[in-house]
């Protein structure tokens, strides 16, 4: 369980997160959505330990983040940042294996297999020998995800669930790979791990997330199952545009079309 209680963050003198609390349970895909600049990424950075909060606390499996060393944290959670530029000529294989920085085993064969599986999982099977710098943006994003999967290859380790923190994991992907990656995150949860993802695509979120947290201006405005969060009222309150939320008849998964909007 990742537990955030009463978290406040100040960036450059400005308070950007105002005392939010949330829980991300193992086995569940928790999505954070909201308008640009509402503090989604900042929240994720505080959860990853990258930002020191001004107030409140974050704990992971019952242990306060502040008391954990970087390498201890690295064995509990992996983090996918929004975009990663590398100015050295690494091959895809080398980038993915950087994920083994904290958790490399002495078994070279096993490490090789973990890296190969991670690439396979993001649909980049034949890409090991390519140069990272020569890939497209979407391919680079998937290589980074493979790197994170290489770090957190098993959803559960030593009897403890592990977590993936993903900042817009599908932002530069084509629709097929959006589905591939969301399914991958979903499977990670089904196998006992936990996922927190910052998302932009509300429909994709509604389709895959177990819990949806909607933020506005550094506060949580709504949270719960997608069908409870994604309503006409919250859409208007959070995004400031009147929209009509519909639902797929069969599964009851809500969706919203931009065509219904009035600004």
């Amino acid at each position, binding site marked *: 369980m990742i537990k955030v209680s009463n978290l406040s963050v100040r960036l450059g003198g400005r308070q950007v997160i105002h005392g939010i609390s949330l829980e991300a349970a193992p086995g569940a895909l928790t999505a954070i959505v909201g308008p640009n600049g509402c503090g989604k990424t900042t929240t994720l*950075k505080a959860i*990853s*330990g*990258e930002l020191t909060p001004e107030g409140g606390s974050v704990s992971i499996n019952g242990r306060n983040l502040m008391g954990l*060393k*970087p*390498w*201890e*944290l*690295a*064995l509990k959670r*992996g*983090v996918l*940042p929004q975009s*990663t*530029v*590398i*100015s*050295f*000529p*690494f*091959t*895809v*294989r*080398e*980038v993915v294996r*950087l*994920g083994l*920085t*904290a*958790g490399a085993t002495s078994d070279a064969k096993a490490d090789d297999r973990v890296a190969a599986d991670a690439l396979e999982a993001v649909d980049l099977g034949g890409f*090991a*020998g*390519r140069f990272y*710098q020569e890939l497209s943006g979407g391919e680079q994003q998937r290589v*980074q995800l493979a*790197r994170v999967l290489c*770090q957190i290859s098993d959803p559960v380790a030593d009897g403890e669930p592990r977590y993936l923190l993903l900042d817009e994991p599908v932002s530069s992907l084509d629709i097929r790979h959006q589905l591939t990656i969301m399914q991958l995150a979903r499977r990670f949860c089904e196998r006992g791990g936990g996922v927190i993802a910052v998302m932009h695509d509300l429909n994709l979120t509604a389709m895959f997330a177990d819990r949806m947290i909607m933020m506005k201006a550094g506060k949580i405005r709504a949270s719960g199952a997608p069908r409870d969060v994604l309503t006409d009222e919250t859409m208007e309150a959070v995004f400031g545009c009147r929209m009509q939320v519909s639902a797929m008849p069969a599964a009851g998964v809500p969706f919203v079309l931009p065509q219904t909007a009035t600004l």
Partner: protein
Amino acid sequence: MPRSEALDRGMRLTALAADIRAEWRSGNRARLARVVIALLVVFAAATFVGSIMTGAADASLSNVVRWLLGANDADQVLSVRDRIIILDIRLPRAVLGMLVGASLAVSGVVMQGLFRNPLADPGLVGVSSGASLGAVLLIVLGSAVFGPLFALFGFYALPVAAFIGGLITTLLLYRIATRGGQTSVATLLLAGIALGALTGAFTGVLIFMADDKQLRDVTFWGLGSLAGANWTKIAAAAPIILLSLAVTPFLSRGLNAITLGEAAAFHMGIPVQRMKNIAIVSVAAATGASVAVSGGIGFVGIVVPHLLRLVIGPDHRYLVPASALLGGTLLILADMIARTIASPAELPIGIVTAFIGAPFFLWILLRGRTNMGL
């Protein structure tokens, strides 16, 4: 029998080459890197011995070896003159060349890793100028102002002064160019130019104040040379250089991780701040010690790592030792050129490395404009 043995060895080599090619295609350059390092060890040893045998005077190395091994007819095989030329002139010079070359190349690698950019080089971004300023301050103001420093450090005073100059410059540079874990390369290079000019101006003031003897000493810094190599200088610089070289292998994983950004390195389990502190101090120490004993020798720190990255890739676990070996070897070769091309006169080695390095640097720029992060 020997024939089939040779055949056998040939086949093993062919198999190894095929393996390496196959691994390279799947993005795995680890074994290639290890083979390259092994070859560099041989190359370094050969160059080292070669440089001891080359020179204006005709002194035979085999006689020295026999003398060292305690041959009975020692005094006949080796004249006193030969002994001095080899043991007190050429050998310290080769040792110093190896140390300084390795230190310049490794400082380049570490700094480039830290700033996440292949153009960051202590010589290029003003760290060497800062170190020179420290050294020149000590030479000119000397014992009048720095008496306690001399008293405390003895003949280490000069490397220590250069180290402090280099450290201050590196810290300033890092402060200016890196915000929130992201380094702006344009800011880095421009700040380097500004800091270089500033330290240059201070050095100018000191030169203005200097007397004739100090002026000669100071001019030596600008050119860069191994000509004054002796065992005292080695004793002053070697501990500092070796210590900072010994630290770098432990930075390799961190340097690899930090190429994805400081945040990503932290996510992967690297204690980023501590690693950066160690890296900055070791770069400043290695650069300071090198500048103190050999003046400003440019371009080794940028050419050597770049060449090696083209061949074995940027993995610092291999890049650091390979750079140390190739840096040392190339500097000895440059020194051989410097002392033979205008023989019996001698060119400062800084001129040789600039003639080779500067065009190479331009070639890097032409070739990889899009990959420099500018």
